[in-house]
């Protein structure tokens, strides 16, 4: 993703002087006066829900006990877990997220599975230790822990991540997540600025810490890897989830969140679980609409937006809590390319883009559920081009703030679902 974003800067220079002058003059005009209404949300319900630690420990114990019993009886033990792929999810508009269909895979101990079987048990043993000690390991650390297992060690982190996902899937029916098992991703969540106060707790003293996302200067609040214990206060009216750091910086620099009275969240590509959960909690707890602003290309639509809204096939077992079903697609839509005169600021779709788009039309239950989406994707395929968020710079650096976003937000009913 990074590579394709860098090329855009030069195109901006071609903007005519006349137009720049016009835009600068218009800049100060639209300051929205709204009644600031304060909304509050406490920590997530599920963070206090029963004793998840106990459930996690019991679940681990139970799986291991099963293996022991079957093995001692001279039979071959197995482990059952949901299949994690797009073919095993359904989408129902009412539920709003990808739900598991219930196809399971059973890993029976045999010559092909013996290594993974052993690794699964050993990672579960690690999880048990961490839950008991209230410690945690990043996924990378978990990978390094295995280096002490001799023959059973993982050769690449990809392998240990897969086994972790399997374990999580196995326990998902009991609402035990990877985070409960004390495995955390090492990447942090997205950046947040705007009219939002995040109430966190000091891990040592337990005291409340209030972070005002409007008081971050030129920086931003960073979503932590676990967000369920956070409480929120806001006067904002909507959340704008942005694909790229570049666009986020522009909107933050010009204090767009103040002008539009909103919260800006930088997703940085496909949003991490923590980011999805964070946006979900704001959307749900503070009852704010969420608008997604991503590139007009199959990746932005079919991966970034789709995952934000309904979750992924890979992590289908956690989608219920880790997506934002109320999210709407602000742009950039294929129609925007025409409406905002971006035709000459586009790039042709690459074979990989076309494949991704066709794949979505054919296999993705989300897009199949919405004729509007099918139409939009087909329109993009027909046009054969993609446009980046930053393409609006063709009309001046702040065209996006002054023209595009206000126009779009004035007509949210036209947003794609």
């Amino acid at each position, binding site marked *: 993703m990074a590579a394709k974003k860098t090329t855009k800067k030069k195109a901006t220079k071609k903007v005519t002087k006349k137009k720049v002058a016009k835009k600068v003059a218009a800049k100060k005009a639209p300051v929205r006066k709204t009644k600031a209404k304060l909304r509050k949300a406490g920590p997530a319900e599920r963070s206090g829900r029963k004793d998840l630690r106990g459930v996690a420990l019991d679940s681990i114990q139970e799986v291991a006990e099963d293996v022991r019993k079957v093995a001692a009886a001279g039979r071959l033990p197995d482990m059952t877990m949901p299949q994690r792929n797009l073919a095993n999810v359904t989408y129902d508009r009412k539920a709003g997220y990808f739900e598991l269909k219930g196809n399971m895979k059973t890993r029976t101990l045999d*010559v092909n599975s013996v290594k993974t079987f052993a690794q699964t048990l050993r990672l579960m043993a690690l999880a048990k230790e961490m839950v008991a000690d209230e410690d945690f390991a990043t996924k990378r650390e978990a990978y390094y822990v295995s280096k002490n297992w001799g023959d059973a060690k993982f050769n690449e982190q990809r392998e240990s991540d897969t086994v972790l996902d399997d374990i999580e899937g196995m326990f998902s029916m009991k609402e035990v997540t990877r985070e409960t098992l004390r495995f955390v991703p090492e990447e942090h969540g997205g950046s947040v600025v705007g009219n939002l106060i995040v109430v966190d707790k000091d891990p040592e003293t337990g005291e409340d810490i209030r972070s005002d996302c409007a008081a971050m200067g030129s920086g931003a609040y960073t979503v932590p890897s676990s967000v369920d214990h956070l409480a929120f206060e806001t006067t904002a009216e909507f959340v704008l989830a942005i694909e790229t750091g570049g666009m986020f910086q522009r909107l933050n620099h010009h204090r767009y969140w103040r002008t539009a009275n909103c919260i800006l969240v930088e997703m940085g590509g496909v949003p991490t679980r923590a980011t999805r959960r964070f946006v979900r909690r704001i959307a749900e707890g503070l009852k704010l609409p969420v608008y997604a602003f991503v590139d007009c290309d199959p990746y932005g639509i079919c991966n970034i937006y789709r995952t934000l809204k309904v979750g992924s096939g890979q992590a289908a077992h956690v989608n219920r809590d880790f997506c934002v079903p109320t999210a709407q697609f602000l742009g950039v839509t294929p129609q925007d390319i025409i409406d905002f005169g971006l035709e000459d600021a586009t790039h042709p779709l690459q074979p990989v883009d076309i494949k991704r788009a066709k794949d979505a039309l054919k296999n993705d239950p989300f897009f199949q559920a919405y004729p509007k989406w099918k139409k939009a994707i087909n329109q993009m395929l027909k046009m054969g081009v993609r446009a980046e968020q930053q393409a609006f710079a063709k009309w001046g650096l702040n065209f996006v703030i002054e023209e595009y976003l206000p126009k779009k937000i004035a007509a949210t009913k036209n947003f794609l679902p």
Partner: protein
Amino acid sequence: MAKKAHLNAEQMAKTQREISVSEFFAKNRHLLGFDNQRKALLTTIKEAVDNSLDACEEAGILPSILVEIHQLEEDRYRVVIEDNGPGIVKAQIPNIFGKLLYGSKFHSRRQSRGQQGIGISAAGLYGQMTCGKGPRIWSKTKRGKMHAFEMQMDLTKNKALITKDEEHKEWHQKEGTRFEIDIEATYQRGLRSVDDYIKQTAVSNPHAELRYLAPGMEEVRVYERAIKVVPERADEIKPHPYGVELGELMKMLRNTNSRWLSGFLQEEFCRVGPKVAKGIIKEAGLGERSYPTRIAREEANKLFRAIQKTKISAPPTTCLSPIGEERIKEGLMKECDADFYAVATRPPAVYRGNPFQIEVGIAWGKPGDDRLEVDKTGRITKTKKKRGTTDTEDLLGNADEAVRVLRFANRVPLLFQQAGCGFTKAVTQTAWKNYGLSQSKGALPVGSAVIFIHMASVWVPFTSEAKEAIAPYPEILKEVKLALQEAGRKLGVHIRKGRKVASEFQKRSYIEKYLPHVGIGLQEILGIDNEEREELVETLRDSMESTRKI
């Protein structure tokens, strides 16, 4: 350039004269396998050994042959071949060893090593031309006395003169022949060397004992006899009508003693009775009572065509003496230490009226590589097999080399012109991938294997007089391929089984490697003690292996 005067017929006639066979071959010795010094040595030995083996077998004697090479000067060698055969009567000695194209084999339709009667006399000729000395022969028949001869050949008259004849009362053998010649030659080891020839001869003649001494060897190397039975003597047969060419047919017509054409056909050919003879003559539009000697070229041609059109049953196959599957296996096992042997024999077949039979053998797998053995309980163990001590050239190549093809015609190894040989063609045209060997298109298969191919026939169709390669007649190719397929299938079964065991062994090592970690994981989660952990792992191993029967 100055114009030279043309010659007229009379002038030419002065220079035109008969060329003796000896002279012809002196100028064209490459046709006989004397094209270079290295090959000259091999051909000399080969011809002498062929003759010795043939003589022993005809006399029903188990051959015991001594071959010696002594270096006299840098490029001069003395070659000695001594056998325990029946010996040769004095009167025949100059003919056999001194006259080209003299022998008993050319005219007969019986399987033998030599065919034309050129070989051994050509060797003598070559020796005389390069070193100035004719061959020396010691010979003793059972009843006669031992004679030691020295000979000189007359190149123009195709004749040999005995220059010395000594009678001895004592000899170390009851009967036998010793042939000695000095030749210009080069002795080398390696592929297509005399060493190679001797070894291959030992493979195809497990009933023979060979003793061999070459420069650089400390003592005589003995190739033991593996079978103590002389191969059955093949019957002699008359030519089959299908195998006779027009010229030969005309010659036979001229020379026959039969007075009627019908009688001629029945007398001179096999598989021709009154009915068949009648059919041929009718087809040719000739009279049954025509005089054979008066049949003109045109009529002979009609007769020839008629023969081709008439249905005549295949020649009898009693004239063939195949080596036999057991013997091929014995021969291979004796000289080629391998993991696995497969042999196959085809029923006799016919090309151009000549009966022939194809036999093949395959030796596969270098011992000394690790071997996996499955015991009765199904456990697999890895053992290192001891390498058999072979002091000679190893016939088996490495697993990444092309297989070696050992070609034999009437038990004689063919060392040269492998690429141009019908046998090689048959090997490359066989789909070895089906039998577990890798093979590029149109190439020899790759693997640590030796492929042995033998053709027994009353008349082996060599591509040249040097007897180096078999002509690729379709009938011969077909038979060789069928035999290779049959042996190949046996090899394939063996290789696949070996691979199965190897892959099973690998899988079990895999289980062995990771299963303990299942135990460790369970121990860490459940807090069980070491003893229970070990027990669990042991039970699991048994359960896993019991589902994996070989």
